[in-house]
Structure formats: C-alpha cells, structure tokens
C-alpha cells in the first residue's frame, strides 16, 4: 500500500518502455525510405512494362499478365505505380532540400540579428504562415502552370516559413545562454559565434525540418496532382488517383487495385519520413528521448 502510494507520487519515474525505442523507429523508417529511394532510382528494373504504353485492354482486372490490372486506356497499373515513386518521392525530397536550408538561413539571420532586415524577414514568415496553405498552392499553380519544376518552386515558396520560425526560436533560446555572452565578451566575430556556438544546437533541428517538409510536400504534391494540377507528362501517385476518380472507378471493383495501392504508397513514403524525423529529433536532442 505504501509503495503503491509513493509510486503514484513519484512523477519522475522512468517510462516503462526502453529509452532506445527511437533507434528502432528510426531504423524501420530508414529501411522503408531507402527501399523507396531504390525503387525511385531504378524503376525500370522492377516495372514489367513501359507505363506510358497501352499494353492491354482498358479496365482489365488483375491477372498473371497485369498484376494490378490496367487503367482506363489500357496501361499497366503496376508499372505506373512503380514509376510514380520517382515523381512523388523526388518532388517531396527536392522541396525539402531547398526549402529547409532556405528557412534555416532565414531563421538564423532573423534570430541572431535585430536590424530592419530581420524584422522584415520575421514579418514575411508570419504572413506566409497565416495564409491558408492548400488554397494558396492551388491559386499559385493555376496561374504559374503545371510543369514538375514549377510545382517544386511553388511548394518551396509556401514551405520555407515554418522551418524559419522554428529555427529562429531555437536561436533565440541559445542566445540567452551564458556562453554566448562569454564569446561576445572575448571579442568573437558574429560568424564565429554562429558557426561554433549556435549552429551545433540548430543543425539537428534543421535536419528534422528537412525531413518534415519533405513529407508534407509529398502530401501536397499528391493533393495538387489529384486536383488535376500535376505535371501531365510525368505521372505521380496523385495523378493516378486523379485519373481513377475521373473515370468513375467507384462504380466497379477497380478501386481495389487502382485506388488502394497508390494511396498506400503515398502513406508509406510519408510515414517513413515521419518515423525518420521522430528518430532524428531524439538523436539530436537527448532530452526528448524520455518523451
């Protein structure tokens, strides 16, 4: 009874599951991600047909010839799915690769300095964050057009602000620590302080942001393509879903082999990135491991 009571009062007790759970999670996520990247790099090695070619009759159900059947104009759905990996995954990762560093630089500058430029940058960050994400993306892409490069550009324009905000608040926290004051007192240059004292506590966060922006961009690209705003020349998973919806796939059983796999692939890629980011977060900040 006594032990039970004190047990209840001991609010600092260790979590019952291993603190190293994040390693397992990261490994699972990384394995998923690497296999997807492999698939995206060498789709021709696995895909049975050329996804652009009409190889069968339209709307064929799955069989030995076409494992996932054919679409409304007789293209092999499995090949489309495999080649779609390249478009969907690389779009997301590329957006992350551009937007996260951009946001990091903006966050560092607006956090470290307090002049007019950084105030303006901060305003811009806030304004971008308030605008509704998807309606903005749709509006922009309706005007700018539908090439793959344009989609990436639009997603970068709307994705850099969130990392900037986070990095900035991290910089502000670090700036309050005594070692920054000490460094300034002995006359270290701004560049040296940024590189040696601030960057180490920001880089983990920047990496996490890259992964998170990537996962959000995969979803955003799928949404755009689903609305028919994707690049018509390179089909992504979202484009597949767009054509499925457009050809009234619900009225037959075709949704099982057309809609289900494409959505599952999107889910898997987003999930792999989320798992990796979860693990990275804990790897870079040990205080989080208990959570």
């Amino acid at each position, binding site marked *: 009874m006594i032990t039970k009571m004190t047990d209840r*009062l001991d*609010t600092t007790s260790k*979590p019952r599951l291993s603190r190293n759970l994040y390693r397992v999670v990261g490994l699972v996520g990384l394995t998923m991600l690497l296999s997807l990247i492999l698939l995206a790099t060498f789709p021709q090695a696995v895909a049975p047909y050329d996804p652009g070619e009409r190889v069968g009759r339209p709307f064929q159900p799955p069989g030995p010839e076409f494992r996932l059947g054919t679409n409304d104009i007789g293209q092999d759905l499995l090949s489309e799915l495999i080649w779609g990996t390249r478009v969907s995954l690389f779009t997301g990762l590329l957006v992350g690769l551009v937007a996260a560093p951009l946001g990091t630089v903006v966050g560092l500058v607006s956090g470290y300095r307090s002049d007019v430029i950084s105030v303006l940058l901060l305003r811009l960050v806030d304004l971008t964050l*308030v605008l*509704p994400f998807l309606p903005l993306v749709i509006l922009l892409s*309706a*005007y700018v057009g539908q090439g793959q490069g344009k989609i990436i550009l639009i997603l970068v324009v709307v994705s850099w602000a969130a990392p900037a905000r986070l990095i900035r608040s991290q910089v502000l926290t670090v700036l309050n620590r005594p070692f920054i004051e000490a460094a300034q007192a002995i006359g270290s240059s701004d560049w040296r302080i940024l590189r040696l004292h601030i960057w180490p506590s920001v880089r983990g966060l920047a990496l996490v942001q890259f992964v998170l922006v990537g996962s959000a961009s995969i979803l955003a690209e799928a949404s755009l393509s689903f609305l028919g705003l994707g690049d018509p020349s390179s089909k992504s998973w979202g484009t597949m879903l767009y054509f499925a919806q457009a050809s009234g796939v619900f009225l037959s059983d075709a949704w099982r082999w057309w809609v289900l796999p494409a*959505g599952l692939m999107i*889910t898997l890629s987003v*999930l792999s990135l989320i798992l990796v980011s979860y693990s990275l977060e804990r790897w870079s900040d040990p205080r989080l491991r208990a959570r």
Partner: protein
Amino acid sequence: MASWASGCDSNAMRFETGSTRRRWLRRLAEYGVTLLLAVSLNFLLPRAMPGDPMALIAGEAIQQMGAERIAELRQVYGLDLPLGQQYVRYLGRLVRGDLGESYRFSGGRTVVEVLADRFVWTFLLVAVSMTIATTAGALMGAWAAWRHGSLRDVGLVTFLFALRSVPPFWLAMVLIPIFAINWSLLPVGDSYSFPRQTGIRNLIDIAHHAILPIVVLSLSYLPTVFAIMRSSMLDEVGANYVRTARAKGLKERTVLLRHAMRNALLPLVTTISLDFGQLLGGVLLIETVFNYRGLGAMMFEAVKSRDYPLLQGGFLLFTLGVLTINLLTDWLYGYLDPRVQGGQA
C-alpha cells in the same frame, strides 16, 4: 486612505485598458496587413504572368465574349492605366464588395453570390469536424501522456502517426465504395438530395450527406490535435501541483481532467489556431471527392474551368476564415488564462 487606494486602483485600471486597447489595435493592424497581402497577391498574379492579363482575369469566359464586351471589361479593370492606379481601382472595387463575375456558374452570377452560397456548407463541415477532432484528440492526447511510456501510449502514438501519413482525400476514396456503394448505407455526392425535403426531413437529409465527409475530415484533424495535446500534457504530468493533488487523495480521474488537462488546454488552443491555415486545406480535397456543395469543390471546379475570379474569391475567403479564427483565439485566450490580458502568449 480609502479614496487614495481607490484612486490608485482606477489609475491602474485606466493604464491597463489603455495598453490592452493599444495591443488590440496592433493585432488588428497585423491582420489588416495580412489581408492586404492576400489581396495584393490576387491583384498581382494575373498581371505578373506572361500573356494577356485580360485572359487571366476573366478566365475561359473570354472565348465567349464579343470584342465589345472585352473592351468594356478592359475599361472596367483599367488595364491600360499604370499599375498603381490599377491597384487603387482594384481596392476600390473590392471595398464595394465587387469580386468580379464567375464564368463557370454564369447566368450573371457574381463571385460574391457564389461564395455566399457555398460558404455555409464548408462552414458546417469544418465546424463539426473541428469540434469532434478537438474533443477526441484532446482526450486521447491527455490520456496517452498520462500513461506515458506504456504500451497503450506507444500504440496510440503509432496509430496516429500512421493516420497522419494517410492522404485524407484517399481515405475518402476508400470509404465511398465501402459505405456508400457496396453497403449503400450513406448517400454520395452533393450536400442534399433532389427534390429537396422540407422541415425536419431536410435536416436529416443534410446530416445524412454530411456524415462521411465529416468522418474523414475529423480523422484528418485528429493527429495534429493529439500530438499537440500529448506534448502539452507531458509538461504537466510531472508538475508539483499534480503531485499535491494526488497527495490530497484526489481520484486519478479528477487530477487528470480537472487539474492537469485544464492547464494543458491553453497551448492546444493557440497551436491549433496557428495551424489553422494548414488544417483548413483538407476540406478542399474532401469536398472534391464527395462532390460536396462547398467552397472546396467550388475551387476545384474553378481550377478545371480556369475561372480565375472565382478562384481568387475562394482564396480570399479562406484567408479571411483563418484570420477570423486567429482573432477569435486571441480574444478567447484572455478569458482562458487569467494571467493574460488581451492575449499575449
């Protein structure tokens, strides 16, 4: 002595209200600037793109217009004037509530009319789903944090991670064949049936059409709410007042619901309002899948038929919605947290 004290008090009060008012004015100015940015974006996009801005302002409708009508519209928009004057003219029309005419839903319908028509349906979906997701997500998040590190916590977190990775519109595409077509439990498409029912039957009919979209939308909001609540609650579970409450012998449920959760709710409110711009987009795709009569499906139609005035109007209304929510939260925050006067988080 008493008069001195009361005088001092009223002075303090005056100072307090003064600073609160100033803060509110600043807030309002900030929101005004954001709105102006959205408006300017609408103004600049058709004019900055290559090609005839007229085609980008009127959309596909231009193909059906005579040369006279086009010349007349050119006059209305002042397209041969310098950009600054065009901008002033544009703002003037906006202030008068003129967002142009829709081509897609033509028959002389203005964009404002179409928006007013569609707004109610989107509002219905978002309001109900947000309420469901916030309640369920907050309870689940609080509970997971309370049982932090247990197998059930890890299971819940895993499930919600997976849910977060699912594209909501795909979830809708999977639920429609199951519930609406194979089992014929629910109707699919539109927000009411034809011919329209009357009275209470009408309400039942509307609810019937809204169930599936609301389920999908709530599920898409749930992971965000859950994650925020769980992490906000984790800051509370180790707090001293929680230990005190337990030491007093209070029931676990009371400590959780009455003490810890109350404090954890505050960050939830702010974070949801900050994320609202990101969350709102989901309704757009889900309405499209369900062919629901709201703003989202309208934007999809507008994209398909290059109905630029309608597209811009939709974007503006979504922005206005986000700003309203933010403003409301600021105001609400003052009530939720007595330490805060006028919402300084």
